[in-house]
């Protein structure tokens, strides 16, 4: 959940905060596993992109944001929606195409929105939402506010024109934007090195004077928090940031893609599974004494119940009524 406080220092996180980070990641993981089940049963349709493996990115970044900051992302948006504080119920109901979904059943998996949380949506055109983030940054500056926007994107986005057009304007106009590249190594089946003529993606920022850039281990939630903390400091002063977070997706690109697929080996996947962000963090907390085995078991139980409840809620929620078909095409205003 977005913190009400100003960004705290990631280093001084207390036991409760540490446990809440683990809780956030585990909730995303178990939620996505449930989504996979529901998809197999035909409860969910269309394109559906799971976030499993990348949870330290959403939790690490969004746990540092203020409530009045903004978030925008891609179609791979379930994890970030939950990490931002959207309820599993409203997300699951959206995936089920029901009226209680966060987008009233009009958006589906790729288009989760929540105005109350300044969650400006999942967007389906690769690269297309990056200029929108610059626009939100422009509006913040226009009003003289000190909020920021975090814009998540897959690593394929760095090769699009929209990305460069947006970063250029963000740097030119000193907009409070943090552009987060979730480098999970693949855009569908295309490995990053087969698509980007650059190894270190964060160096794309070198084209834009004044932009702050770094890359960080995306399987280490505390490292992501650290990097986010630095990023926010720069962005709140009007210095845009390009943050490359190196992660991995454990599932296929979407539900129609086999887990390892034709484009990567089982051996590679197994190698990355050793650095599962949730296992790593749990082990760390057990070792430091911030978490006990009993507490973890209880957390698992609690999350299992939350996720089951989201399914039950979604299943019971009505389909959108026929008359809603023509609603929300236009706002009806008097000019």
């Amino acid at each position: 959940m977005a913190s009400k406080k100003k960004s705290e220092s990631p280093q001084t996180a207390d036991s409760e905060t540490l446990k809440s980070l683990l809780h956030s990641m585990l909730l995303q993981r178990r939620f996505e596993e449930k989504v996979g089940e529901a998809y197999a049963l035909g409860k969910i349709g269309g394109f559906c992109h799971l976030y499993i493996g990348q949870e330290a990115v959403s939790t690490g970044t969004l746990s540092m944001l203020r409530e009045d900051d903004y978030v925008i992302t891609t179609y791979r948006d379930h994890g970030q929606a939950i990490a931002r504080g959207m309820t599993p119920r409203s997300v699951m109901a959206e995936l089920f195409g029901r009226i209680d979904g966060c987008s009233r059943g009009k958006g589906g998996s790729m288009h989760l929105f929540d105005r109350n949380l300044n969650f400006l949506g999942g967007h389906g055109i690769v690269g297309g939402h990056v200029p929108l983030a610059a626009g939100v940054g422009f509006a913040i500056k226009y009003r003289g506010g000190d909020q920021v926007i975090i814009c998540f994107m897959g690593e394929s986005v760095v090769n699009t024109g929209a990305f460069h057009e947006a970063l250029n304007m963000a740097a030119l106009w000193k907009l409070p934007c943090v552009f987060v590249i979730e480098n999970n190594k693949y855009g569908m089946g295309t490995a990053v090195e087969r698509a980007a003529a650059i190894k270190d993606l964060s160096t794309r920022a070198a084209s834009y004077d004044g932009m702050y850039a770094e890359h960080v281990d995306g399987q280490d939630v505390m490292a992501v928090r650290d990097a986010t903390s630095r990023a926010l400091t720069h962005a709140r002063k009007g210095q845009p940031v390009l943050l490359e977070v190196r992660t991995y997706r454990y599932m296929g690109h979407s539900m129609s893609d086999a887990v390892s697929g034709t484009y990567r080996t089982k051996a590679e996947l197994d190698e990355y599974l050793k650095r599962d962000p949730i296992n790593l963090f749990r082990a760390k907390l057990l070792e430091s004494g911030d978490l006990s085995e009993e507490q973890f078991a209880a957390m698992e139980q609690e999350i299992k119940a939350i996720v089951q409840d989201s399914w039950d809620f979604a299943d019971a929620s009505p389909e959108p009524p026929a008359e809603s078909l023509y609603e929300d095409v236009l706002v009806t205003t008097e000019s």
Partner: protein
Amino acid sequence: MAVITYREALNQALREEMARDDRVFLMGEEVAQYNGAYKVSKGLLDEFGEMRVVDTPITELGFAGVGVGAAMVGLRPVIEFMTWNFAVLALDQVVNSAAKMLYMSGGQYPVPIVFRGPNGAALQLSAQHSQAFESWLAHIPGLKVVTPGTPYDAKGLLKAAIRDDNPVIVLEGEMLYNTKGEVPEDDYIVPIGKADLKREGDHCSIITSGKMVLVAMNAADQLAKEGIRVDVVDLRTVRPMDVEAITASVRKTNRAVVLEEGWEIAGIGAQVVDYIQRECFDDLDAPVVRVHQADVPMPYAKGLERAAKPDLAKTIAAVKKVMYVD
């Protein structure tokens, strides 16, 4: 009433709306220091400052998206495209972002934005700089599309567009900017979605909009000398279209010519003809005739360009054809 140019009318609309609502800002290439590629934004930088009159790099996709993002969080951007030919690079933001946001967010995120600029052909600018895009844009649910043909309508429609909470496309015309007409000094708007009967006659309807309104008015003048009285229906908005105004005219005249600047296939005129056949089938005394650009990219040579464009002679010939004279 003051007689001013179409360009000045647009300038007044921008100035008045920016003065009345500080969420309104103008963004685009050359809009600020250069005073606008076509001088529509003349003087606005001095009056409103550089946060509200914003020069952009040549980055249509990017700044169209900046507008959409700013609109999502409460500003009211007016995005100027130097011409709509260049806006093709930005159509992802117009079509996939602006037009879809309200719907796919289940009503949470309106996008109160105006995309405006000159549309269609000027003179001898050839293939890449002479395209009319009204049918492309009118195809998209989630957009409104207005096509003012006179200074009065330009000011009133632009003001209405800026006050509207939806994405509104304003298609202007380079060849219109210097045309003059009466424009009231006091605050008024022209409602979006309402056609205007620009000329009354009972022999034949010409249904048109935008730059072609002037052609239709000239045709009506010429035909009047031959005793043919033409109704000129200026649609003013091509989405949503004022079907009642079309049918009222055709029911009166029983004959129709549909005149548009763009190409024939899937053009705006095709939609008008569909409304006519649905609503006025039994009223028609002749098949409807369409006048439009030849089905070719716009050529450069003067003679070829003239042959490609819809014009006065073609419009008069079309009216005579539906009247079965000549």
